[in-house]
């Protein structure tokens, strides 16, 4: 009893407090565990998270204007964009100095391309000016305003100067505004003219069609998964190969196969005409529209729905159903009240997989979507590879990512992410 009356901390064998030595042992364990996962962690960090962060940053980054035209940006600060007049000589002199340096470093066309996204025509204005300004003496050749105007009247255009001034800060929200069909005007943010609005329409279309595709996958996949899970394993394995075989086939091959099936002179239309169900001159239009995209993508994404459903259904104990029936449930009640709730985690997992894959798809919509069946990702791909407007592509991508995370969060709140199982 005397030992337990001691009030000091409990000591370990070597005399250090037990709490401390326990913490140290645990820390060692954690460190060891961390070192084990370090390769993967670093890999994910370097190849996945950092590029994403870099891409996100591109959507607001706008160093190029102030880096290439440092003097002009400073000189322009005093100019009133609503004055109705082009800036004065000091701005043009600053521009001459900047453009000469930029033309020697061959960066003047780069800034021209950047500003051309906002105001068509600036690209060639800068390209032409660079060629001439290179030969000027920026000390002695003034006044420069006349020389610029003589070169091209567009230098007197207020719109050009407003664009340079609006896009001179190092960070810009211009790309984000652009990706929701807005733009920066002289007096704040404006809605783009109707004939330039496209992105909101595409975002909405992408979400609605992805939801339809997810729904179609659930409806088609559920019975298949149920059959797979309830057949004797030998037959089930055989059928499973039928599910996996298309999964292993190249995406492009499957998409092209749908073209052959669905086009107006294709297999389905030919058969219908041959059977006399459809007149020869009234063949069904099933491709190059939303229908084509939905059919092809549902087929391509179906295995992603069936596999999680199947693995969840396999774990449902068949005696539950038998118990329900022995207690007097009809087949439907037993299914709906007992079996279905148990299979919901599989539906949840499959739906998240299919939906997230669907909103990022672009090859299939590009090939079979025509004009009404393309997704926002087709525009992102266009801006990455063709127009080279990576800032806009990054802004569109960021919005897409944010909306997916938001949906994931809502899903977690409503269904609960613990309620998602892959098996």
């Amino acid at each position, binding site marked *: 009893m005397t030992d337990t009356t001691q009030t000091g901390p409990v000591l370990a064998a070597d005399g250090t407090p037990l709490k401390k030595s326990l913490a140290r042992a645990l820390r060692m364990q954690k460190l060891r565990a961390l070192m084990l996962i370090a390769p993967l962690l670093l890999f994910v960090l370097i190849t996945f998270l950092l590029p994403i962060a870099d891409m996100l940053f591109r959507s607001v980054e706008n160093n190029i204007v102030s880096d290439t035209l440092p003097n002009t940006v400073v000189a322009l600060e005093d100019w009133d964009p609503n004055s109705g007049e082009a800036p004065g000589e000091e701005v043009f002199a600053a521009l001459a100095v900047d453009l000469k340096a930029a033309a020697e470093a061959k960066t003047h066309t780069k800034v021209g391309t950047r500003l051309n996204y906002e105001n*068509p025509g600036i690209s*060639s204005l800068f*390209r032409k000016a660079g060629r001439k300004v290179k030969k000027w003496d920026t000390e002695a050749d003034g006044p420069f305003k006349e020389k610029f105007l003589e070169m091209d009247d567009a230098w007197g255009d207020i719109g050009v100067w407003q664009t340079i001034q609006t896009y001179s800060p190092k960070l810009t929200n211009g790309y984000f505004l652009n990706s929701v069909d807005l733009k920066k005007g002289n007096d704040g943010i404006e809605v783009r003219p109707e*004939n330039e609005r496209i992105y909101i329409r595409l975002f909405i279309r992408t979400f609605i069609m992805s939801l339809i595709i997810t729904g179609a996958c659930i409806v088609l996949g559920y019975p298949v998964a149920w059959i797979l899970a309830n057949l004797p394993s030998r037959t089930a394995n055989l059928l499973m190969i039928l599910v996996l075989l298309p999964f292993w086939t190249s995406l492009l091959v499957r998409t092209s196969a749908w073209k052959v099936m669905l*086009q107006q002179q294709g297999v389905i239309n030919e058969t219908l005409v041959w059977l006399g169900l459809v007149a020869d001159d009234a063949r069904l239009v099933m491709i190059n529209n939303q229908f084509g995209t939905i059919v092809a993508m549902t087929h391509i994404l179906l295995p992603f729905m069936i596999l999680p459903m199947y693995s969840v259904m396999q774990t449902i104990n068949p005696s539950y159903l038998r118990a329900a029936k022995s207690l007097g449930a009809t087949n439907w009640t037993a299914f709906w009240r007992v079996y279905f709730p148990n299979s919901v985690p599989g539906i949840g997992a499959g739906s998240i997989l299919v939906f997230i894959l669907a909103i990022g798809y672009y090859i299939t919509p*590009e090939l079979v979507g025509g004009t009404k069946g393309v997704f926002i990702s087709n525009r992102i791909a266009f801006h990455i*590879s063709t*127009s080279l407007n990576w800032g806009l592509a990054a802004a569109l991508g960021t919005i897409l990512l944010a909306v997916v995370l938001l949906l994931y969060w809502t899903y977690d709140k409503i269904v609960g992410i613990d309620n998602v199982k892959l098996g």
Partner: protein
Amino acid sequence: MKLSKLSVLVATTALCAPAAFAEEMANEMTLVSWGGAYQASQVKAYVEPYLEMNPGLKVIWDESSAEATAKMRAMAEAGNITWDLVDAVASDAMRMCDEGLIEEIDHDAVLAPAPDGTPPSEDFGELLVSDCFVPQIVYSTTFGYRTDLVGDTPPTSVCDVFDLEKYPGKRALQKRPIDNMEWALYCDGVAKDEIYDVLSTPEGVDRALAKLDTIKDQVVWWTAGAETPQLLADGEVVMGSTFNGRLFSAIAEQGQPIGMLWDMQSFDLDGWVVPAGLPADRKARVMDFLKFATDTQRLADQAKYISYGPARKSSAPLVGKHAELGIDMAPHMPTDPANATNVHVYDYEWWADNRDDLDAKFQAWLAK
């Protein structure tokens, strides 16, 4: 023992004398092209003869020209350029030149003169649309039609594409504003030399889109050049635009019932660009190859394999017969006088300025 001595020797020479190696040419070269029949014609016409002259050289092909601009920018940002010579269309070359991704080339200093001594700048003439670009071929975007689906009066004018009464059925057009906007305005009655002036105004853009609206329901929009020949072969469309070489192979090599509509064909250029910032030995190799591959005879040889016109004036008289089919190639060239009676001259400068703006409007119109 011998081997290790040798490797030490090689290592030390390499370390001590990088300057001495500067004029040496690399013995490996990565070329980027489009794949398919076009790349095959380059292999036969340029690369195989060059390899005979330089037996130690290793040539690696990368079929990435379609996404060359994006990949070049990514390489430049990463500071690791793995390509030595890239095949690109003129508008992409201008974009890359503006971005500083490719070398400026002094055409007269780098390229071979014509056999009669004409300097390259004159021999290529106005086709040198950018300081960074060495043109190889002139190709055209033009229409092909199904000879069996157009009745007794085949189309003769590009405006027949817009005439749904005379030629009912679907048409294939490229999913981009370039060419389509010009054809639409031309067929709406705008004079050929005023097309770009009209298109520079918002009303002009609306007018072009309104004209395209009249056939919008009947258009299949393509993105890859191979789609139109396939659509024509399947009978999915009555007529469609694509690159003339694609139509040539559908007609001459596959014997499809397709006719050529050369009216208002839109000339475009394809050629070589050199990535900026190559190491000296690789650059020396590339420049040597470039000089060989774009000389008069080589450009004429390429026309044996594909129906694209050589970019040099001096090559035109040397164009002969198809290497396998034995047919005379000249009548299949977009530049042949019989085919080029009414051509549309594509304005690179104008499109470089207005491409982003018009593309936004065009895509918004498509999505409506």
